[in-house]
């Protein structure tokens, strides 16, 4: 989780990703940010987030994104 928080904080240092629960709804993350995050995640976690998983629910909070990464890791195993 810490690695993911590092990725997110590097992108938006002013946001508290531990607490924020509506990153897409509140327009904190835009499509450019999402793609950048996916590239970083693919590097750090060695997991590919497919286009169909790019939905609001998966990107609204760090927790939700981390759950998605874990799910994809499990599916990969």
């Amino acid at each position: 989780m810490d690695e993911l928080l590092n990725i997110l904080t590097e992108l938006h240092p002013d946001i508290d990703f531990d607490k924020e629960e509506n990153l897409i709804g509140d327009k904190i993350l835009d499509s450019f940010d999402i793609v950048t995050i996916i590239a970083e995640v693919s590097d750090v976690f060695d997991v590919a987030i497919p286009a169909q998983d790019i939905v609001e629910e998966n990107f609204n909070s760090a927790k939700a994104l981390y759950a998605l990464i874990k799910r994809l890791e499990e599916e990969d195993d």
Partner: protein
Amino acid sequence: MLFTSLGFLVFLAVLIPLYFLVPKKIQWIVLLVANAFFYVYAGTRGLIFISVTIVTTYIATMVISHLYASQEKYLKDNKESLSKEAKKAYKNKMQQKRRLVMILCAVVSFGIIAVMKYSGLFLRGTEFAQSLSLILPLGISYYTFQTMGYLIDVYRGTYSPEKNIFKLALFTSFFPLLLQGPITRFGDIGKQLYEPHTFNMRNFTYGLERILWGYFKKVVIADRILIAVKAIISEPDEYNGVYVLCGMVFYAIQLYCDFTGGIDITIGIAQILGISLPENFLRPFFSKNIAEYWRRWHISLGVWFREYLFYPISVSKPLLKLSKFTRNKIGNGIGMRIPVYVATVTVWFITGLWHGSAWNFIVWGLLNAAIIIISEELSPLYAKFHSHFPGLKQKWLYRLFEIGRMFFIMCSLRVLDCYRNVGTAFKAYSTIFTRFNYNILTDGSLLKLGLGVLDYVVVFCGVALIITISLLQRTGSIRDKIAKKPIGIQMAIFAALLFIILIFGAYGIGYDSSQFIYTEF
């Protein structure tokens, strides 16, 4: 059949009562027959192409669904005996099969568009290109994108496919959407199209108000200002300098009223039938930058390109590899953004192509991409500037400056929409900075563009009314506010709008109630 034709009004006057009078079970069939009538009225040849799209999409989605079911059964039956690697290999094999089916189907439908719409780009002037453009099927850009979105969603497992081909045909051909969208997702309207609907007075009055508002924008403003726009762009050598500047503003008014007016009519008709469509505009001219503008203008097309093109390209293996490479070589800043920019340019190139088979639209698309990328690159500079002037962003004058800046940029890009080719567009635009014939604003020259003083007054008042309504909308639905007024006031508003359309509508001698601009795309 034009939304503005008498025939269309008769068509609605027959359909709406019929839709609510027939047994609820067959309401969707009535809609399907209405769609067929609407489509055949536009020409029987187009029917072949839409039928090909419906049939191929139906077959492909059923095959994909079958492959999903086979995979599930096989994995369940062999749960114990298969190793992790074998399961993964099997899943990959099935995924490849599904992808192949999806791609083959997409190639057929996009292939039809490519041949019908884009052969003109390379074969301009030839008889073959002319004959194809004559039979360009009605709404091909809209129904193809809508149906291909559905195909991709079924491929991704987002929806189960519709098993009744006639119901799929209804989704593909729903007549209010055929002329200019919105390009709607299956999840948004599929169920609504097939389920029974009871006549609802609230839906009827809200829908009718929305339709009248749409007609007001289309026939009172767009079709009137169109005359001056046509005059200016048809003679680029004569009408230059400040004329071009006026043409840019006039075209912005025309396009906004034409497109949003058409969408108002579309959404209004659907609402009367009990079907709720997603909004396609969110007061786009109140945007402060071009990226925000594109999130608020033609929303359904933007969402389509984002979901089915921008994200898949951005997260594709080659671009992720490029991302890794650029970050290692150039560093985390620009290196991280290059792949996103590659996807942005690709999407805007295709967005330009979607708008038409002319180089004007391709250049227009690429310029949009360039401005978005430049804005993104300059954002640290803006942030630094604003850190020196905290609170500036909240000042209404600065907000007005941002809106004005965005309006000027959008108007400048749209010059490419207007003129017959890229060279003429750039030449006409450049005269804004070289010819300062401001005297035309006061010496009566603008009255020689086919519009009289009364026409300009009508357009000015109409635009002022639209801006006022848009400002009021920010605090909630106008129709909700009207519904709370006494019935007498509601009727008066309703009657006033109807009379304004009848009295000031741009029809009759000297006017040409034209097709909607976005129907041509």
